[in-house]
């Protein structure tokens, strides 16, 4: 995507463009360069984590042990989750924020550009540190991404490396979040009041606050694991008077807001895409802002629904059940607002819109299975089954990931100056959507029938659905190679994009030329 910068030669800006050579990418403090780096990093990690998922699905294609031993299987489930969450989806959305937030609010750059460079360049090192645990004595962490003790304390040499990697990834996220908040609060064009901000900016503002509030709690929790393992403390060691359940509380106090950290930016992207291709303003803009804020607040008081089976008092179960169900209200507001935006709109179905629509349908399915899991008596049946796996993959893959892919198609012409290949984009969409459902929908059935998660082998009655699921996973994985091809093709050339790109697009980022010049909005724009 470096072409984005080199093609701005025709632009008559008085100042210099990017530096020459590869070191430009190391020293850059330009928000567009750093956004590009984040997006490329997350795309690479999508394939690293995806390869691990395919190891899992290959092993589960038939009952019995075929390819990997159970311990390596558990390492794959653990690393797949850690890579996908901390290495892929979170950096992807930070990349979108870097590229788009300054352009959407009429700011020349991020508020703290050097910090921005540092936030990104921690990531490749942290990712390498995490992946290096695969080659260590005793293997990578195999206790699941939740790292519950006492099991996680039995990890071999990998434990401190994995924990330091999580510390670094958290450090990077917190610095990125601080940067985004300061940019939004301090650098907006003077005429852009808070409620005039586009919804993507709003969802990121709230996400950034969530990040600052909970990533340090995770850092504290894993630090306690570290001292339990190596410095003789007993936070979670029952032998010394500690309690393993305490870790679950600390972890999910982080973990539940974390799921909204992952999905809120996707909500923001979809809230930009749907109005554009409906050629109508977003229905209920302010109610969307309040709904997002409500979801963020509620995310702090529902964490124990991840651990209903630990034996909590009835009052606790009722509280966490009801507060969890309450989240369906603001989420419903958002879904209905998106639907109402399309009502009587002049719809067209370019690739970004297709991904946004699939997001709307499939995320809602994931939301409903989440409601089922919120019901305490039912949860005792579903807990730790494949139904849970189906639920969170529906909200994360056709939810968060579709939001990111849709956003990439939506803004690619702005980044590169060229239209992507619409025919190939549609192929990518239909293949991805077909295979994602083929992968995850059958997992609902095997889960309800009693197949536990995180096992390399299973009873024969689950064989057919697992075979279907594995076929879907390979189809889904290879379809993403098409995505890479489309991006490369678009970066190299194609039909020239106009400044507005989409005829229904509205917002400051569509007032600058395509590709966006290296420096934008050095003079603050006037917002209507």
């Amino acid at each position, binding site marked *: 995507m470096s072409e984005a910068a080199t093609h701005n030669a025709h632009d008559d800006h008085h100042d210099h463009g990017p530096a020459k050579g590869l070191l430009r990418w190391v020293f850059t403090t330009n928000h567009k360069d750093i956004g590009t780096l984040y997006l490329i990093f997350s795309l690479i990690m999508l394939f690293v984590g995806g390869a691990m998922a395919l190891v899992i699905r290959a092993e589960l294609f038939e009952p019995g042990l075929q390819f990997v031993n159970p311990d390596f299987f558990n390492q794959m489930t653990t690393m797949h989750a850690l890579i996908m969450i901390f290495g892929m989806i979170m950096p992807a959305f930070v990349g979108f924020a870097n590229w788009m937030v300054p352009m959407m609010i009429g700011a020349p750059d991020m508020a703290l550009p050097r910090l921005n460079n540092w936030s990104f360049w921690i990531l490749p090192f942290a990712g390498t540190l995490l992946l290096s645990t695969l080659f260590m004595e005793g293997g990578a962490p195999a206790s699941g991404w939740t790292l519950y003790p006492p099991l996680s304390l039995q990890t071999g040499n990998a434990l401190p490396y994995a924990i330091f990697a999580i510390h670094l990834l958290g450090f990077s996220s917190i610095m990125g979040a*601080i940067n985004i908040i300061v940019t939004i609060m301090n650098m907006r064009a003077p005429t852009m009041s808070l409620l005039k901000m586009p919804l993507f900016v709003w969802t990121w503002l709230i996400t950034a606050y969530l990040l600052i509030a909970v990533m340090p709690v995770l850092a504290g929790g894993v630090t306690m694991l570290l001292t339990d393992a190596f410095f003789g403390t007993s936070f979670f060691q029952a032998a010394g008077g500690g309690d393993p359940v305490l870790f679950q509380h600390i972890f999910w106090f982080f973990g539940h807001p974390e799921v909204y950290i992952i999905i809120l930016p996707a909500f923001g992207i979809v809230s930009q895409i749907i109005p554009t291709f409906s050629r109508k303003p977003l229905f209920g803009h302010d109610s969307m802002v309040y709904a997002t804020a409500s979801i963020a607040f509620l995310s702090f008081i529902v964490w124990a629904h991840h651990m209903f089976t630990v034996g909590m008092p009835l009052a606790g179960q009722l509280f966490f059940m009801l507060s969890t169900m309450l989240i369906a209200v603001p989420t419903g507001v958002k879904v209905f607002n998106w639907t109402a935006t399309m009502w009587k709109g002049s719809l067209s179905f370019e690739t970004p819109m297709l991904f946004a629509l699939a997001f709307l349908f499939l995320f809602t399915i994931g939301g409903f299975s989440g409601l089922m899991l919120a019901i305490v008596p039912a949860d005792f049946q579903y807990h730790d089954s494949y139904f849970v796996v189906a639920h969170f993959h529906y909200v994360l893959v056709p939810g968060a990931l579709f939001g990111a892919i849709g956003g990439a198609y939506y803004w690619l012409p702005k980044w590169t100056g060229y239209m992507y290949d619409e025919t190939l984009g549609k192929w990518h969409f239909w293949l991805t959507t077909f295979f994602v459902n083929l992968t995850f929908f059958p997992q609902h059935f095997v889960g309800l029938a009693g197949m536990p998660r995180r096992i390399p082998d299973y009873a024969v009655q689950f064989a057919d659905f697992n075979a279907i699921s594995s076929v879907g996973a390979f189809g889904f994985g290879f379809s993403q190679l098409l995505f890479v091809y489309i991006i490369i093709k678009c970066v190299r050339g194609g039909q020239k994009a106009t400044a507005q790109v989409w005829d229904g697009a509205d917002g400051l980022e569509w007032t600058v030329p395509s590709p966006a010049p290296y420096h934008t909005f*050095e003079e603050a724009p006037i917002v209507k």
Partner: protein
Amino acid sequence: MNTPQADRWLPGKLVVLALAMFGFGFLLVPLYQVFCDITGIGQRTGVPTADVVVEQPSDRTVTVEFVATLNQYAPWEFRPAVQSMEVQLGKLYDTTYFAQNLTEQTLIGRAVPSVAPGTASKYFKKTECFCFTEQEFAGDEGRDMGLVFSVDPALPSHIDRLTLSYTFFADRTEVAQANSST
């Protein structure tokens, strides 16, 4: 380019917020202890019950089951003397658990109790228990360890069966030494 309302101190405030939340993670540890003390859940049953008043034993009886658990690599033999007892509420009972050190070294053991259902744990009163103190065992030594308990007559009427479970741990550093020398 800053807007008029730009806040120069915002980055600093956000750093302070992040540091405060790091501290809050650790604050959850004592908060959890307090919460468990109030509700009587979790593993907070390893201390003597101060207010044991032996009232008139009631006619109601419940079954108390005794469970002994060892983690995978614990070098102990550990079992209750009886599997279960029929217990009259408000009356004192005593029983024993047997433990034996299976290594040649002196080991210090510690029993961590847990009562199920968790909501019943505050009605389960232990006046004497081997779990209150560390238990030192010479190499190969085995002995019975005593337990004196009663069940509070205020126990909710829907509970007719209690399980008292002990997990027996060896002091971790001692186990490490024992394992490395064998």
